[in-house]
Every structure is written in structure tokens, then in C-alpha cells.
């Protein structure tokens, strides 16, 4: 706050009343409204807390206690050099005069500093009304929507048409005109309740005014209200509402006054697969299924209407009719699908293009089968029949009517249709889980067999797309390769009982890609880097630092579960106060080795060629450490392996204190370099400690 802030303040309210915004636009718009308001007003006018609330039809900004007048300020502008200020006879030069005039000061008032002239311009704070008049359009222009539109002649871009702007500072209207709309004090309630304008006199009463007109304006209030409604409705139907988080979030921003309506179904409706019914309810109609205690479907659902009426009888009738129509549609597709077995669908895969260069789905299935066979060679204890049968049938449901209609049921429907074939019980589960995990946090395949089948599918997608040059850039990732790479990483780390060298598996998958695609060393490296990038974010998510992750890069993809334990070992060792200094010493050693350009690799280390006491001591310590690290790593005890560092530390310090590496005696220099290389390499199987960031020395 500036010292001349007037004591008089008043609340400011901005309500942008729009045609219905898509639900997904609302929360991001409110966040921006708040952040952008704060940054636009910073230093311009004193104010209290900034808050926002809103619905699909109202984006509302409320700023407590906005001062009546903006802040005074002095701005400095850089001008000509001091040498060009005055002529030899002491008059101001035309350049100095011109510069001063430009900023409305006299040349005599210019201030020299560091050989340059400055004009200092003082401006008194504007009245708040004028300031806010400029602020409102600036703020609304700053909002970013996932998609913009234009609708009127000024061509203003926004998420949906703006129909009214309410802007009040205290009881005064802040007059602005934007997108052909003039601001005022009119506020609009729920459109089916009343569309007559209401009059707002005090910004603080805005929320209440909307609430009285059937609009619950606070998203958190609406959320709480919805949950209460859903729970009560489910209870009355004798079950529990399927509280799907995405659907709840969407419903909160899709309604201004959510009211739960229970609708009862006939049992015959529940004959279709439950996953299909749930999807029809949630995805197509935005209804909440009602479940029993075990998660099974009960013959009832809850629709959430926007608005309110006595009993909601007509609404319930309408919901029932529309659900019945959708279920009939689904039944039509399902019945048609059941007329052909999954095996009978395999030939059709030839006619479905996966990608132009990568061939049909049949070609893909054949590659995935080969990759699965390759993975099985490392995992002999896994039931190969499950893996190979699952892979064989995994894509067959893509040509079924239900999956064409509901692509998100791929896998789920495959498992259902598979279980209609004799002898399929064993692998139907692996088909269901073939696309798992379907998102970053979603569940993983539950058995090693399902996991390997799923992994094989992902490896082919990754290798295929990279070979075809379809490498994700920025936000463009049409084949969801980031998700698939992360899925592969999660499977290998979180599903127990798998042993997969991911680097080798990726190379193998790359080799299976068709003629005409690029399968060279460069693509192979790009692919490994890409997968490592996902692994890096996964490890970061689990709380590891970027430098720790970098330190375990070597060999990490060859054994991801080991990489996790190596990271834990590094993180653990880092708690030791001497660790940073040790890491710094390793970095020093690595830097010296970098300068030597690998010359030391030409010589065999030989203790007899060393001379200094300190280097002999280090030699012995490294010799011990090597053996110890090797033994511990063999047992998977990475923490123990790093424990050996403690005994190295004094010798390494002694070495750097007493021994000069880059001496003129070439053979001795090489021996010393070889010793350092041995030291660094000894621990590399756990971590490259020179990657650890240490505070600047």
C-alpha cells in the first residue's frame, strides 16, 4: 500500500454473464480471472483480497476494499548522453530540449546519472473509476479459453458470447463497453427461473442475489450441494451413488442449481454387461448409476437436473425415456456383436488401418505377438499361453459395433466377447487389462501374464510410431505415446514378478517394424530417451530429485526396479552430511577425466607404478570398494554398496590434497587417471555421483 492511499475504499464486483460456457472452461477461467486481476492491478491501486466464483453463465471477480484513487508514481525515462546536454555557451541543446518536451518536463529538470540524462515524470493516481474502466476490458482480453469464438461485429474473442457485464465499485457502476455490451448493475438469475434483470446495489450482496434466484454461484458450494443431493437420492433408492469424480466435476460446472432426480429401471434393462450400462449412463447421459454395497448395479439411477420443480416428475419421466432409448441402442449393437465370435472377427482386422506406414491392425497384432514371445524368453515362469492368446484376440473387439460406438470400452468388451468362447476363461482377464493403465494413475494389469501382453502392445506402438517418424512434439501426441511409455514404466516397476530389459525390448520392437520405416541407431536412441523422459517424470512424481535421477541413467532401462532401488540408495546416502562434498570430489575426478579424453583407458592400472603415499592409499581403498560394491550389487543391496563411499572419502581427499594428476611424466599421469577412472566406475553401477548437484563451492 502506498503511503498516500486514501482511507476510503469500496468493494469491486465484475460479473461477466455469458451464454452457457462448456463445463470444462469454467474452473480454468476463474483461476485466470483471479491471477490476472492481481497482476494487472499490482502497483496501480491499493486493494484487499481478490476472490472469484462462478458458473457456466457467470464469471465473477470480487475485490474487497479497492481504494478510491490509484497510487501515485514516478517513472524515469532514459534520454541523451550528458555530453549532449548543453552547448559550449551553456544553453540546452535541441536534443535535450526535445527529449524534455516529449515527457512534459523542462530541460533544466533533466537529471544526469552515470553520464546519461533522465526525465522523471510524476503522475498522480487516477480515480479508481477511471482505472477500473481500463482494467475490465484488459482483464477480459487476457483470459485464455481452450477454444475461442466470435459472435458479433467487433470480433471480440471469448469462450462463449457475453450477454451482460455487471461492474460495480461500491454502489457506482463502472461503465465499460465490450463486445457490443454496455456494463450496468443488472444481474441475471437462473434462465428457466426468471430471465428478468435483477438490480444490484452492493457488490457484497451479489452472491446472495444469485442464490435467491436459483443460482448457487460458488463452485465449492455447488459441489457440496450436489454431493448431499446425490447421497440422499441414492439412499432413497436403497444403494450408493457411483461418485465418479470426473462426472461430479463436470456436473458441478454444468449446472447452476443441481437437483438429483431418482429414476427406477426395470430389471430387464440390467441384462447387458454392467460396464456397458455404466458407460451409457455416465458418458452419454451424464447420469449417476446406483450401486449396491458390492459395487453391482441396482435398477435405479440418478439424473442431475439444472433447476428445481415440485417432485421433478416430468423430468424423471423424460430421463427414463431417454435412458431406455439409449439402452435399446446399446442392446442392438451388443446383440449383433454376439452373433460373431471374437475368433471370427480376426480376419476383419486386416481391413482396419492402424497407420499408413505401419499397416493394418492384423499386421500390428502379428508384431505384438513376436514382441510378446521375446518378452517371454526372459520370463519363463509366466504362463505363456495367457500372454499369447490375449495378444491374439486383444484387437478383435475393435471391429465390434459396441467398441465402434464406445471406443473407451476396448478391452472391456473384448474380454466379455472372449468369455463367450470355450476355453477362454484363462486369458479373458488379460484382454480386459490389455490397455491398462488407461491413465497416469489408473490401475495396472493384475497378473504378470496380463502385464506382459499389455507391455508388448505398448512397445509396438512406441517403436512403430518412432520408426514412422510420428514423434510427439509439444502438446501434440495423437497416438498417446507419452501415456503408453509411462504405462510401460509403471508396469515394469509396480507389477511384481517381471524381468524385462526395456532397452533390449525396445530395440527388438523397433526391429519388427515394417520395411520402409526408419529403424536405425538414431531412432533407437531417440526412443530410449523418450521412454527415459517418462521414467524421469515418474521418479520425480515419487519424490526423487532430477540430479539423483540423472545419476542412475546408465543401465536404468535395462532393469527399472533396480533403478528405483538405486535411487533410494542415492537419496538415502544424500542424508549423510559429508555426501555433498564427496559428490563434489567425484565431479572433480570426472572433470579431470573428461580433459584426458579417455587416454587412461589405454593403460592397465598398476599399483607398482604409483609413487605417492596418498595415491597408494586411494588405490587400496578403491580396490576394496570395487569388490565390496560388486558383491553388494549382486545381492541388490545398493544402499550397502554406497556405504563403501564413507571409507573412500578420506583417501580421496588426501589424493586431491597431495597428488597432482596432470604431471609431465606421461606414464605416471596415465596411471593416476586410470586410478580415478576406476574409482568413478566402481560406483557407477549404483549411481554416477558426479551428476549430483552440489552447492557452488
Amino acid at each position, binding site marked *: 500500500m502506498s503511503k498516500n492511499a486514501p482511507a476510503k475504499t469500496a468493494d469491486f464486483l465484475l460479473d461477466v454473464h455469458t451464454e*452457457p460456457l462448456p463445463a470444462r472452461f469454467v474452473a480454468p477461467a476463474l483461476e485466470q480471472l483471479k491471477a490476472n486481476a492481481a497482476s494487472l492491478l499490482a502497483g496501480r491501486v491499493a486493494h484487499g483480497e481478490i476472490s472469484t466464483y462462478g458458473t457456466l453463465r457467470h464469471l465473477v471477480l470480487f475485490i474487497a476494499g479497492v481504494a478510491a484513487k490509484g497510487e501515485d508514481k514516478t517513472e524515469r525515462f532514459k534520454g541523451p548522453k550528458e555530453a549532449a546536454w548543453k552547448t559550449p555557451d551553456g544553453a540546452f541543446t535541441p536534443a535535450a530540449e526535445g527529449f524534455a518536451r516529449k515527457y512534459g518536463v523542462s530541460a533544466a529538470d533533466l537529471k544526469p546519472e552515470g553520464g546519461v540524462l533522465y526525465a522523471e515524470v510524476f503522475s498522480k493516481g487516477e480515480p479508481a473509476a477511471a482505472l477500473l474502466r481500463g482494467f475490465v476490458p484488459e482483464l477480459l482480453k487476457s483470459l485464455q479459453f481452450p477454444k475461442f469464438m466470435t459472435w458479433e461485429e467487433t470480433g471480440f474473442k471469448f469462450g462463449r458470447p457475453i*450477454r451482460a457485464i455487471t461492474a460495480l465499485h461500491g454502489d457506482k457502476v463502472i461503465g465499460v463497453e465490450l463486445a457490443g455490451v454496455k456494463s450496468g448493475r443488472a444481474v441475471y438469475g437462473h434462465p428457466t427461473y426468471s430471465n428478468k434483470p435483477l438490480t444490484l446495489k452492493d457488490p457484497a450482496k451479489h452472491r446472495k442475489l444469485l442464490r435467491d434466484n436459483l443460482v448457487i454461484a460458488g463452485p465449492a458450494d455447488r459441489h457440496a450441494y450436489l454431493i448431499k443431493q446425490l447421497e440422499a437420492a441414492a439412499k432413497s433408492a436403497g444403494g450408493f451413488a457411483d461418485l465418479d469424480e470426473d462426472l461430479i466435476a463436470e456436473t458441478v460446472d454444468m449446472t447452476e442449481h443441481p437437483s438429483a432426480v431418482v429414476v427406477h429401471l426395470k430389471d430387464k434393462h440390467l441384462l447387458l454387461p454392467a460396464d456397458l450400462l455404466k458407460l451409457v449412463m455416465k458418458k452419454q447421459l451424464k447420469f449417476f448409476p446406483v450401486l449396491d454395497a458390492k459395487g453391482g448395479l441396482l435398477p435405479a439411477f440418478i439424473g442431475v437436473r*439444472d433447476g428445481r*420443480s415440485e417432485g421433478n416428475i416430468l423430468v424423471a*419421466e423424460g430421463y427414463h425415456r431417454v*435412458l431406455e*432409448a439409449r439402452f*435399446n441402442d446399446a442392446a442392438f449393437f451388443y446383440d449383433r456383436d454376439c452373433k460373431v465370435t471374437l475368433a471370427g472377427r480376426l480376419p476383419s482386422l486386416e481391413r482396419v*488401418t492402424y497407420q499408413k506406414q505401419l499397416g493394418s491392425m492384423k499386421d500390428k497384432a502379428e508384431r505384438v505377438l513376436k514382441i510378446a514371445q521375446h518378452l517371454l524368453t526372459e520370463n519363463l515362469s509366466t504362463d505363456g499361453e495367457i500372454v499369447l492368446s490375449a495378444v491374439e484376440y486383444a484387437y478383435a473387439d475393435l471391429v465390434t459395433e459396441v467398441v465402434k460406438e464406445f471406443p473407451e470400452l476396448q478391452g472391456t468388451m473384448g474380454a466379455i466377447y472372449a468369455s463367450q468362447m470355450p476355453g477362454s476363461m484363462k486369458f479373458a482377464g488379460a484382454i480386459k487389462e490389455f490397455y491398462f493403465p488407461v491413465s497416469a494413475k489408473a490401475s495396472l494389469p493384475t497378473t504378470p501374464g496380463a502385464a506382459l501382453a499389455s507391455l508388448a502392445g505398448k512397445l509396438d506402438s512406441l517403436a512403430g510410431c518412432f520408426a514412422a517418424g510420428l514423434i510427439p512434439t509439444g502438446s501434440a501426441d495423437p497416438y498417446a505415446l507419452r501415456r503408453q511409455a509411462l504405462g510401460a514404466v509403471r508396469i515394469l516397476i509396480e507389477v511384481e514378478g517381471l524381468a524385462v530389459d526395456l532397452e533390449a525390448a525396445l530395440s527388438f520392437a523397433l526391429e519388427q517394424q515394417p520395411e520402409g520405416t526408419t529403424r536405425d541407431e538414431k531412432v533407437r536412441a531417440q526412443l530410449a530417451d523418450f521412454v527415459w523422459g517418462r521414467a524421469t517424470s515418474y521418479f520425480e512424481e515419487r519424490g526423487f530429485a532430477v540430479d539423483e535421477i540423472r545419476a542412475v541413467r546408465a543401465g536404468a532401462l535395462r532393469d527399472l526396479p533396480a533403478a528405483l532401488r538405486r535411487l533410494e540408495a542415492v537419496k538415502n546416502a544424500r542424508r549423510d552430511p559429508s555426501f555433498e562434498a564427496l559428490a563434489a570430489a567425484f565431479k572433480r575426478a570426472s572433470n579431470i577425466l573428461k580433459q584426458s579424453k579417455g587416454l587412461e583407458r589405454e593403460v592397465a592400472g598398476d599399483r607398482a607404478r604409483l609413487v605417492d603415499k596418498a595415491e597408494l592409499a586411494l588405490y587400496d581403498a578403491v580396490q576394496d570398494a570395487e569388490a565390496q560394491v560388486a558383491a553388494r550389487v549382486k545381492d541388490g543391496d545398493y544402499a550397502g554398496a554406497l556405504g563403501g563411499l564413507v571409507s573412500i572419502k578420506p583417501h580421496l581427499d588426501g589424493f586431491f590434497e597431495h597428488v597432482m594428476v596432470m604431471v609431465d611424466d606421461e606414464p605416471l599421469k596415465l596411471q593416476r587417471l586410470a586410478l580415478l577412472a576406476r574409482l568413478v566406475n566402481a560406483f557407477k553401477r549404483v549411481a554416477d555421483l558426479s551428476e549430483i548437484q552440489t552447492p557452488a563451492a
Partner: protein
Amino acid sequence: MKSFQEIIMTLQEFWSREGCAVVQPYDLEKGAGTFNPATFFGALTTVPIRAAYVEPSRRPADGRYGDNPNRLGKYFQFQVILKPAPAGITDLYQKSLKALGLNLKEHDLRWIEDDWESPTLGASGVGWEVWLDGMEVTQFTYFQQMGSMALSPISVEITYGLERLAMFLQKKDNVYDLDYGGGLRYGDLHKAQERQFSRYNFETADTALLSRHFNEWEAEGERLVGLGDPLPAYDCVVRISHLFNTLEARGAISVTERAHYIGRVRTLARKVMQLYIAKAQPEAHHV
């Protein structure tokens, strides 16, 4: 309760009072009311337009032999096109529902994000599906682009699905049970059509003839573009678009061919649009 024909008459009267020219359906088979020249050309230029019309829409692949109570291979849209888009158009739409006898307080009226895109026409728009108690009864679109050009002024297109709306208003579960008016049910007039056209579209259409016609009407369209007459050339676009839909329903088009066919319709549509703008309204280049 309003019969199917009374619903049409009510909407015609409502929009007529709002200053619309009530025009007649355009006499060619088409997949949607947007293909009617009143909309297709109407949205392209800067000249204001207000029009409303019923348009039969043929979707060969959606036919169900008259067996499915909710799906039809041919149905009717009531289309309104307004340019420039009037402020308060969503309120006006609500009023049209009230004119049909709905008390909106007793119903759940929802606006669900649904943008429209026609790669064939290089056209896109922003808007909603309107749900009445969960049933989609209207498509509401602000056109943004046509022929890959940003439009100005912006048109708004309201498309009522007449059968859906009638089923909602008459509380019918089966489209064929709708009261059409004149003592007839919807099924009396349309069931035989649905049955026979489903058979034609899925089973008996002569695909060699259809693809020959596709090629011929495409060539004719190109010729007419060359002669500088966009209106008859546009008829060729509408014809080949429907021929493509029928060939596809008949299963005569493979996945790779499909993209090729769509590309051919698009190419001709773009040429027609460019010609129309160049001929009818040189100032359209300023938009």
C-alpha cells in the same frame, strides 16, 4: 397436444414473426439442413439473412428397417439461420419452446458443448446440443468458418430434430407412434419407406451405378465451375455427397478409399464456394 404437423406450423409461425423468410425444402437428397443453399450460401457472404425451413435429411447408414423405435434413415429437421446472430438468441430459442407448449420450469434444459465441423466444407462452428430432460432436441451453432475462411458477420444456425422434439412433447417411446396430424401416425407415412430404403441402402443399391454417377456428377460440377455458375455446380456437390453416403452404407467403400472420396467432395465444394464469393460478392474478400 400438438401433432407433428402442428409442431412444424408452430415453429414456422414463431420464426416468421421473428422476421424469417419461411423457405421450402431444397429438392435434392442431403444429409443435413446445412446443405440447403439458404444456409450454405447464406452463411458465406456479408448480406444479412433470416430464414427458416423444414429439411428432410437422409442418413443411409442410420436406417434400421423400421425396427428401431429411435433411429431413422430419413428424418426431418427444422432449421433456422440468422445473420447476424441476434443478441439474446438463446432466450429467443427458449421462447420457441414455450410456444410449443412447454413450461420450462418443469423441465431440465441443458446446453451441452458440441462444436460442429464439416471437413468436407472446410467449415466449423461453435455451439451446443440442447438437452430437454436428457433428450437431445436441438443443435445450436455459431458458424465460424466456411471454405476455411473466417466468417463475418457470424451466422447462428438452430436445428430442431423434429421427431425427437415430437416424441418429447407427445411422450412417445416409438417414433412410428407419433401423431402426425390428419388422423395419421408417423409410421403410416414412413414405416414402409424406412423398410424399403434400408434394404436399398444396405443390400440392393447398384454400387457400380452409384460410383459411376459419383464420377459423372463430380465431372459435371467441375465443368460448371469452369463455366462460372456456382449454383448448378453446388447441386453437383450435394448429389455426390449423398452418393458417397449411400455407397458407404452399402459397404462399398474401404477405409482408404473413404478418405479419398471425402477429399473429392471437399475439393469440389471449395471450388464452388470460392466461385460463389468471387461472383456474388467481391467485397467478401474483406471479411
